[in-house]
């Protein structure tokens, strides 16, 4: 009990949904100040529903959301707006508004009856725009900004609210790589330096893996997993989470692959040390079934080979390539129409692969 009270933000037994029909049940999570929580899961899994319920736009069906021990849904609208800022997926029109006008909207919870900005408010707006890197756009019409600039403007607007908690629904969708990284960099910086707590949903798994302290996986109307990035991006779990019906997803590397070409292997690829992956992918693109070897299981080509090759001749991690493997590789190779050697040189420990190449009539100088 006492331990719970140390948490900055806490969701208890939250069930969310529309018109009494639950979409996601029993969400539980606690966050320390300055932590970043990312929600991942398929389209329609209920990520937005959870976020909307946390931000108070949707009444939760049951459960409580605490921010510093106060229930978010029982706070006054003004207090809530001073503590929590949001970034939504809604497209903002902003006709006849400058970039600065939009950012200034974040000062709403701090202005008086008529909403006139004080000099201190203006200074805060200026500082935030500088922080986000859009100071140069201040007087530009919002409608003329690019999607990336618009999104940074909306981020500045939210930061201008001086929130302790920020909720973002797919903030990086529609953005190019530069703006995706800029946006997440700012969030990470705010989390570290200003102890801003961040809850967001992302579709870019590789970014979720890099930026999140905690990841919540939503599937089948419940939180299927909750943990650190290392715990979530392990083994084949991501493929399960998204119910991949075709292709595959390498969790640790956040690398999606298209489905392998099935059939009798027509090409044998002698590879290793990362030399094989581009060859595998080209063969996949051309629709040619292939086999590859001889790889140690810790070889960086191995995860790709496993997903794309019809057959992988391999030995255990850090194990010596033995007779059996070499024999197996020879047999497979003889069954193929052609052989590609992706390796450019052979080191001492790779003698077996060199013999394979020589056997196929490929002669490359060794390292011996």
């Amino acid at each position: 009990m006492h331990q719970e009270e140390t948490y900055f933000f806490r969701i208890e037994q939250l069930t969310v949904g529309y018109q009494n029909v639950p979409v996601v049940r029993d969400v539980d999570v606690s966050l320390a100040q300055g932590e970043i929580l990312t929600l991942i899961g398929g389209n329609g899994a209920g990520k937005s529903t959870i976020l909307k319920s946390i931000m108070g736009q949707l009444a939760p069906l049951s459960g409580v959301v605490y921010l510093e021990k106060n229930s978010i849904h029982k706070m006054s609208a003004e207090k809530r707006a001073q503590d929590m800022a949001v970034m939504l997926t809604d497209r903002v029109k902003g006709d006849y508004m400058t970039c600065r006008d939009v950012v200034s909207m974040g000062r709403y919870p701090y202005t008086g009856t008529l909403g006139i900005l004080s000099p201190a408010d203006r200074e805060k707006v200026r500082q935030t725009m500088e922080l986000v890197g859009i100071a140069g756009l201040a007087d530009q019409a919002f409608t003329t900004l690019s999607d990336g600039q618009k999104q940074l403007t909306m981020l500045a607007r939210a930061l201008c609210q001086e929130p302790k908690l920020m909720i973002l629904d797919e903030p990086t969708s529609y953005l190019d790589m530069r703006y995706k990284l800029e946006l997440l960099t700012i969030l990470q910086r705010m989390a570290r330096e200003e102890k801003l707590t961040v809850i967001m949903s992302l579709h870019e798994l590789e970014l979720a893996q890099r930026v999140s302290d905690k990841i919540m996986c939503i599937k089948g109307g419940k939180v299927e997993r909750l943990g650190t990035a290392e715990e979530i991006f392990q083994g084949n779990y991501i493929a399960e989470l998204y119910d991949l019906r075709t292709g595959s997803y390498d969790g640790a590397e956040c690398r999606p692959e298209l489905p392998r070409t099935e059939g009798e292997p027509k090409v044998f690829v002698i590879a290793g040390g990362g030399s094989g992956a581009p060859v595998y992918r080209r063969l996949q693109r051309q629709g040619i079934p292939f086999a590859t070897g001889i790889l140690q299981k810790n070889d960086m080509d191995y995860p790709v080979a496993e997903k794309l090759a019809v057959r992988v001749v391999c030995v255990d991690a850090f194990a010596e390539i033995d007779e059996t493997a070499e024999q197996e590789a020879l047999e497979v190779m003889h069954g193929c129409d052609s052989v590609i050697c992706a390796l450019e040189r052979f080191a001492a420990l790779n003698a077996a692969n060199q013999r394979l190449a020589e056997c196929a009539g490929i002669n490359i100088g060794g390292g011996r």
Partner: protein
Amino acid sequence: MHDLFSDREIQIEMKRLKENKMSYRWLGFVLLVLTTLALIAVNLCMGSVKIPVDQVWQILVNAGKDMPAAEVLTDVGISGTSQAIIRQIRLPRTLAAAFLGGALALSGYLLQTFFQNPIAGPFVLGISSGAKLAVALTLVGILQMGIKSSSVLLIAAAFVGALFAMGFVLLFARHIYQSAMLIVSGVMIGYVCSAVTDFVVTFADDSNIVNLHNWSQGSFSGITWDNVKVITVLVVVTYIGIIFLAKPIGACQLGEAYAASVGVNMRVFRAVLVFLASLLAATVTAYAGPISFVGIAVPQLIRSMFRTAKPLVMIPACFLGGAVFCLLSDLIARTVFAPVELSISSVTALFGAPVVIWVMMRRRRNG
């Protein structure tokens, strides 16, 4: 060193730009006020009987004094007829046109904010027509019972009618998310209400109802000082109420969800907005009948004139803009084919409809 210098240069340039923008706004307001005053003057002078400006001025200055003043004026050569025309007909009519025009423009501005739709307005959404129907029914009803109609009763009827039409629009809005369809449903409600009004007016046998026909086309004629008093009080009070809504109206520019996220109580805000917009539209309709396009066109014109959407600029500017628009339209309606008077709606549509087309074309271009 060089960078620093150019930075400062940029800052100075930005400051100059900003100051320009501010003075530009003041210029806009001065222009609107001057135009309003000029149009009031022209409206007072022009008509089937032309009265020179200096005479009008004399009449206005001496308006406070009673009988002796009239004699004084007659002595200077201003006829009693001229005095009566100015005092009893043109002055109340002109003031009503100014106030009701402002009210219409504000009503349109509130509805555009509410529906997040640039071509929303009391007329297209059927609110004016709803008010018209209610007023027509009330007039016919009480005329048949032989009761004298009163301002308050008419406004109350118009308000109920406006809220009724608004209720239908809101009902449709809940099921229709496309803004184009919202407008279509509003226009349909408007047609239904107008059709029913026509039935009522056509089949009501009292000869007094002939007047109703003129009124139902929209006109500022026949406004009395008593009417002007009620109009002034209602419009001024509503105007002050709207000024206090400026903050949440501003927040709504980014959409309702963002407004709610910064602490706007959307349920209360929406209710107040609908109430004020309907009250304004009802006031106008009760006295001048349904007037089209002022509500859509004026906020658009003002927005592009001031190049801002800030409510604290928009609210007073829309009011003045609406006054200018209606004063000009009424002047044209009264004088172009004098002594025949056009319906005010024909004139406002002639100028307002192109504005709507222009707005839609510009939006398409902007994507």
